[in-house]
């Protein structure tokens, strides 16, 4: 099934989910809303053929949810239990926004993103910086893995228990490669006319379709329902 949403719709979803995540769910109905807005991005991830990340998120979320409800109900204290519920609580609490943000980052191409931001009249500077931030997380993770591999090859596992060394051995090479990647990125961006004085045109033609409007309406009503049930009663 083809399910391509407009970046603006996805941004709207991110916005709504982050708003709902800030408020805790107290009643079963509120939990239902929360779980629903978590499952929709997951389904969308599957629709965009990101099966493995969708599965990983799904398993993590469901496990945390189950542990949270089962253990919390018959909790008898103990350090392990409280630590476990703490972690699962965090996962349940923040997973919705993580999943939605991941969905947004993974399925939005940079040119689509920039074009969408242009249509919303966001200043160019903010758009470019934000686009770089979005693209850069996977790069940092990848570079970090490479650095770790290189360290392992030389027999440095954790910096010999020295915390300062641990930070230094990881951070300095990471910063080195990030600075270099940044230079390359700037060169590539300037080649593509970013930062020119003329208004850029875009190859992607973004249009809000019925799907987008449906999705926005769905999320908006979820947020309204959530707030109404929680605060006005």
């Amino acid at each position, binding site marked *: 099934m083809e399910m391509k949403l407009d970046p603006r719709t996805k941004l709207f979803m991110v916005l709504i989910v*982050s708003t709902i995540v*800030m408020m805790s769910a107290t009643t079963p109905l509120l939990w239902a809303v929360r779980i629903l807005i978590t499952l929709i991005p997951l389904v969308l991830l599957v629709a965009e053929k990101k099966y493995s990340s969708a599965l990983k998120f799904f398993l993590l979320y469901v496990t945390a949810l189950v542990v949270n409800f089962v253990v919390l109900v018959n909790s008898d204290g103990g350090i392990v239990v409280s630590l476990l519920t703490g972690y699962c609580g965090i996962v349940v609490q923040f997973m919705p926004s993580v999943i939605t943000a991941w969905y947004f980052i993974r399925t939005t191409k940079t040119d689509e993103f920039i074009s969408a931001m242009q249509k919303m009249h966001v200043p160019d500077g903010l758009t470019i*910086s934000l686009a*770089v931030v979005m693209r850069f997380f996977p790069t940092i993770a990848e570079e970090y893995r490479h650095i770790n591999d290189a360290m392992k090859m030389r027999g440095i596992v954790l910096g010999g228990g020295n915390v300062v060394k641990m*930070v230094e051995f990881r951070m300095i090479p990471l910063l*080195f490669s990030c600075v270099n990647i940044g230079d390359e990125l700037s060169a590539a961006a300037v080649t593509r006319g970013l930062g020119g004085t003329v208004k850029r045109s875009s190859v992607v033609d973004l249009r809000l379709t019925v799907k987008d409007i449906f999705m926005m309406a769905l999320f908006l009503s979820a947020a309204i329902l959530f707030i109404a049930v929680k605060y006005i009663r």
Partner: protein
Amino acid sequence: MDKSKKLTAKDFITIGIFTAIIFVVEMAVGMTGYIHPYIVAGYVVLLPLVCGIPMMLYYTKIEKFGMLTIMSVLMAIIMFVTGMGYLGAPLIILTGLIADLIAKSGGYKSYKKTVISNAFMSLWVCANYFPILVTADSYRKSLIEGGFSEDYANSLFRAVNPKTIGILVIVCFIFGIIGAVLGKKVVRKHFEKAGIV
């Protein structure tokens, strides 16, 4: 030199990269806060210290007004998206603006001004305590409902409350200075020798 006052695409990319790095560091340090709430209060020590290195490297790249402000705006956006709430956002942007103005008064080259500017910039860590203070009751409730134990919430409020926030801000500021000095040393040791900056 007048033309170069405006930020270029290269500057925006630099902002994006360093914001991403700072955020990753913040996340890595932030994860430790779930072990014990006192570590949450300890962020004011840990974060400025660790962030000192990338920040000082970032300062060597800054030549124009706006780069620190935009960074703080991005941080505020990211903090909102990751569920930290919107209450701290204006404070984050404010500290970024102050930091920017201070660094500007030193022409972005003065070492002393850079150090002080970084100390102000680190205060965004404290801005994240803001929801804990302002909406104490509902925050506490949402913590416990969110799966944290009663003990965790109690200790968190013992560590972060209206009485301690002044101390936390001052400590954060001081460690912002220390982080900047240490960071500058590291940058000198590694990056200036290698000719990167």
